């Protein structure tokens, strides 16, 4: 057991810190063009797709270096590494594993150069986020698939150029998880219609996407027909430690402490209130545990273990933490809690992020069934 970093890793951390010091203004000073310039510099450093193999234009970084990069960026309140989160997280790794040479050539450079814009089509109406139940039908017709049905909760479908689309190509397959395929589909294909869904805070991220006789060439299929489940599950193997769950929470806790320092409770400084203090201490402890959980998982991955349900632990912790953290903020705000500030926004918006990766109850089911071996309900 050793939490120290190698000299090479320490040098890399220093490099990242220096880069940030040289290039990243504080959030309030970031102008309109900032992200464009910032991304150009990241592209130059090959820090977008940093852990992807060099042969595909990636940075060839190790998992630990990737962790260091993300940790420092998060601490500095930097924007995401790259402009196409969905594409970089899901599509790129899947392409590297399962793509044909043509597909790789077509899509990977754009991903790494911030010129792509992907959405992912998993959830469907009435079946929720369980991939095994997906119904969107793709019927082979000559060199095309013809797609009919609908996807829902499709984030950014209204601005994306492509959709990483999961379809059912064989409804008679033996298991619910076979018979699924992935099609890399341009959003401007005729027959695709997008209905916006506005969320609780008035933002338009989600959409429902309707497919009516949409024709996609067979060459757009990623991986073998009927092997879509494997393609999707493998896609995230690169980042399964759950570390990303904790870095965001660390930032969040710092803000919450700052709020507490500047708040009153019962006419006295809030930090004199034993309950407020212990709540903050409990959050800090839980978030420390999340960070360490992530590092333990990372170690397992480096040692070659296939990550399985580990991320569910940190996902569940985040789901359990976000609401009470926002809740403490609201209580520190007093009457202002009814206003429209950053914290009030979070207090509503967390409902979405909590659901995003599967609700806490879904994570509990995953742990109980896959780790503890309890029967399905």
């Amino acid at each position, binding site marked *: 057991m050793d939490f120290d970093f190698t000299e090479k890793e320490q040098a890399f951390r220093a490099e990242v810190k220096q880069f940030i010091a040289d290039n990243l203004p504080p959030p309030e000073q970031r102008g309109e063009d900032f992200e464009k310039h910032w991304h150009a510099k990241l592209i130059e450093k090959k820090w977008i797709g940093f852990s992807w193999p060099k042969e595909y234009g990636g940075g060839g970084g190790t998992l630990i270096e990737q962790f260091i990069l993300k940790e420092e960026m998060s601490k500095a309140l930097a924007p995401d590494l790259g402009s196409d989160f969905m594409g970089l997280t899901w599509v790129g790794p899947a392409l590297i594993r399962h793509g044909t040479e043509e597909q790789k050539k077509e899509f990977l450079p754009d991903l790494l150069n911030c010129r792509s814009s992907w959405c992912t089509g998993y959830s469907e109406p009435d079946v929720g986020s369980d991939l095994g139940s997906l119904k969107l039908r793709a019927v082979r017709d000559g060199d095309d698939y013809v797609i009919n049905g609908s996807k829902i909760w499709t984030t950014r479908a209204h601005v994306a150029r492509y959709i990483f689309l999961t379809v059912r190509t064989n409804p008679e397959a033996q298991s619910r998880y076979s018979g699924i395929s992935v099609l890399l589909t341009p959003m401007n294909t005729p027959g695709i219609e997008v209905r916006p869904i506005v969320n609780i805070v008035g933002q338009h991220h989600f959409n429902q996407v309707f497919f009516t006789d949409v024709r996609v060439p067979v060459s757009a299929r990623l991986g073998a027909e009927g092997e879509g489940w494997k393609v999707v599950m493998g896609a995230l193997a690169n980042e399964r430690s759950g570390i990303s769950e904790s870095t965001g929470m660390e930032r969040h806790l710092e803000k919450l402490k700052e709020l507490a320092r500047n708040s009153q409770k019962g006419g006295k400084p809030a930090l004199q209130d034993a309950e407020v203090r212990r709540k903050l201490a409990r959050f800090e402890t839980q978030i420390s545990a999340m960070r360490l959980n992530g590092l333990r998982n990372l170690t397992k991955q480096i040692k070659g273990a296939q990550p399985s349900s580990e991320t569910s632990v940190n996902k569940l912790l985040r789901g359990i933490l976000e609401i009470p953290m926002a809740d403490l903020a609201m209580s520190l705000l007093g009457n202002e809690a009814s206003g*429209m500030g950053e914290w009030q926004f979070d207090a509503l918006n967390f409902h979405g992020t909590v659901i995003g990766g599967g609700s806490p109850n879904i994570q509990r089911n995953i742990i109980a069934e896959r780790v503890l071996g309890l029967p399905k309900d």
Partner: protein
Amino acid sequence: MDFGFSEEQDLLRAQVRKFLEDQCPLEQVRQIAAGDEGYCPRLWGQLAELGWLGLTLPEEFGGLGLSWVDLVVILEETGRSLFPSPLLSTLLAATVIDQHGTAEQRQRWLPALIDGSSIATVALLDEQDYLVPQAIQLQGAAGDGGYRLSGEKRFVQDATAADLFLVAFRTGPGDDDLGLALVPRQAQGVSVADTEGWDRTKRSGVLTLDAVQVDADQLLGAAMLGAPAIASIIDYGALAVSAEAIGVCEGILNLTSQYALDREQFGSPIGRYQGVKHPLAEIYVDIECMKSLVYYAAWALEAQPDDAPAAIAKAKAYAAERTCNAGVAGVQLHGAIGYTDEYDMQLFMKRSKWSRATYGDEDFHYDRVAGYGGI
């Protein structure tokens, strides 16, 4: 000993519920919430005609002379339907005028508040957001036989709808140096701004007073009323919000139970899962407890005034904490659809957060309960 509603009260409830279901279903609530005024003057006129604006006020001014228990019946229903209106603000202001006003002041304002031609609200808090009379800072400078008020009042409910403000101010550092001024909207130096909040069915704003002259006859009760009178306004407000919160929780429970019955997964309704069932059972238990605590507090307000502050603190503490919890659980149990604007759950969730904060959250009131309970 009779801890139940009378037949008349049951009838009143049925009448209010039918009125709100017919006249202000949730589509209508959304429309009003999207508007500038924050309420519907036509419906407001109907409330007045039905006598509800004067429910607890004396018959000599056009009121019905009923009790706070009757009022609770109405407020449960306005909560349940998320009815957007300055009802709560006006009732509070009218109650305070009725209790503390001089004969002239009561005659001048109560008939107008009861017949709906005037809307009033209370302006308590200024700089410090701490809900005790001692935190009120706005100074009244003696002058011209009255006072001159300058400063800002925050968190004024229904500020933009009101044409009369009961403004709390002080003339010195003591608990006796607190008074309430009757300040009309059109008085010189008064300006009002809406504060945007997430729950647009409940409006709040900032009242700015720029050297507003308050004559002697505008001083409520013609005297500095002192801290206890101000504290009692907070109690009235806390009780009223708690009563509405019962309805809010009922709305959440109804919507979510129905969803749990309708929504199927793997061929059967998700309501069969204990992960869904148990949180819903807990919301039900909370509603039962909130009812018990609120009904008793409303009764005590008139029949056992000594016990009322503790009873109200308990009611509001419980309502604040558990209504907020019901809102969170309601959204979570709906999954993604609960997080959309188009589905109604979000309206209730936003109201649940308003219900928590307004007139003191659970920490504020539990601290009071501790004090009353000799802790």
